């Protein structure tokens, strides 16, 4: 594969920033809102946004099962913040009826770092990303309480797990798409290339 085609789940959230980040990491990026659009992409980003809203819309428009099927079949997927919650096999404190896609054997705590007053920026070392720490932007961010045997910790902040990888699935509780630094997206684009 020369240039991978990567979708960004465009039900709600900071879709535009992910499209820009993927394009600067040498992928062709396009928004995905329908099952037939999902079928065409080599990999998928689940953006930041409101996890309750995204899961409701995915349910309403028949995307949950197609998404689960593709993730189970090994499609590379990367989730930031709300996207990390969507990729968790389990939420510690779900809203009633809140469903996740799963894909990473981890338990997440929503808004674990606090409300907007506590949102922060900090430098974060990410395993597999060369050239020093990335700029971590944490907005009402979740953290990962615990991971299973198949998952590996990719980054920590202040003693909490904030990035995890399991096979072709990657998740960060911070937002590299809000910075000009696209190294995490480049790492994901490499994962998509390797999976082809």
């Amino acid at each position, binding site marked *: 594969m020369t240039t991978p085609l990567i979708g960004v789940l465009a039900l*709600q959230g900071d879709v535009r920033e992910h499209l820009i980040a993927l394009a600067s990491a040498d992928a062709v990026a396009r928004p995905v809102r329908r099952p037939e659009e999902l079928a065409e992409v080599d990999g998928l980003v689940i953006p930041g946004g409101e996890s309750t*809203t995204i899961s409701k819309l995915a349910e309403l428009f028949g995307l949950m099962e197609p998404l689960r099927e593709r993730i189970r079949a090994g499609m590379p997927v990367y989730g930031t913040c709300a996207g990390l919650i969507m990729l968790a096999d389990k939420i510690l404190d779900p809203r009633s009826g809140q469903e996740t896609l799963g894909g990473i054997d981890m338990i997440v705590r929503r808004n674990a770092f606090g409300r907007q007053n506590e949102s922060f*920026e900090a*430098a974060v070392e990410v395993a597999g990303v060369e050239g020093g720490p990335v700029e971590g932007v*944490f907005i*009402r961010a979740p953290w990962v309480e615990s991971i299973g045997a198949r998952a590996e910790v990719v980054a920590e902040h202040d003693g909490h797990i904030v990035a995890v990888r399991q096979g072709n699935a990657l998740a960060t509780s911070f937002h590299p798409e809000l910075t000009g630094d696209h190294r995490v997206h480049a790492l994901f684009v490499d994962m998509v290339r390797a999976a082809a």
Partner: protein
Amino acid sequence: MSSTSTPQSPETGTARVKRGMAEQLKGGVIMDVVNAEQAKIAEDAGAVAVMALERVPADIRKDGGVARMSDPNMIEEIIEAVSIPVMAKSRIGHFVEAQVLQSLGVDYIDESEVLTPADEVNHSDKWAFTIPFVCGATNLGEALRRIAEGAAMIRSKGEAGTGNVVEAVRHLRQIKNEIAKLRGFDNNELYAAAKELRAPYELVKEVSELGKLPVVLFSAGGVATPADAALMRQLGAEGVFVGSGIFKSGDPAKRAAAIVKATTFYDDPKIIADASRNLGEAMVGINCDTLPEAERYANRGW
């Protein structure tokens, strides 16, 4: 104005964290609610955030009198009831109401013309807060003056509490047209443009380069139907605020969910049509050209 270098130790209240919060709301619907029960209905319908206030704008219009910040108890009940972000309104220039809202832990403050202004000259200095602000604007100059004061998100004002989308369309078109015009200007022209817009040159230059505001732009003030929400999205709004339109309608839960669907699939008439079926009665609405000048909220703020 946004910070570019990342601190080694965690830093709160940065421009990137404030503006980034609004980026997470994009493509979504923010709904006015007056109690915890309504907040839950909004969350279940897929709202990305709720705006906690004592009376929706339609009732503020009806009741008259001075409209102020809501009771802290009521705001706290709403914060307890939902997991989505909670916004609340302060009066224009009433920075103490804003301080109170920040202390309560709301996620965003709307310095809003829907409440009675506390200062007819100055808006609040929004850089002084760790909590981000959204402000209304009727044109580009007004939007940039608010951003210069620290606003991290802009909403076109429309005319709140009318259920009539005409002013929302007017203000959003005005902002988008002025941005498009700036896009074509050369460097020599930007100084005069800044003077004419009564906005800082640096911001005018940034908008000219980006072709958009440096913060997220939503639309507000008059959205009452799924098609209204989709219209504002097609005109370039990155999301919508719906005030009286939901809980002043016949079936709030159904209408709220329908507006959420139409906001996501704003360019798909079939989905908007399906979302528009059997919604029950919409709010009655007011013709804006019969509104006396003194009752036009959009004229508040400068």
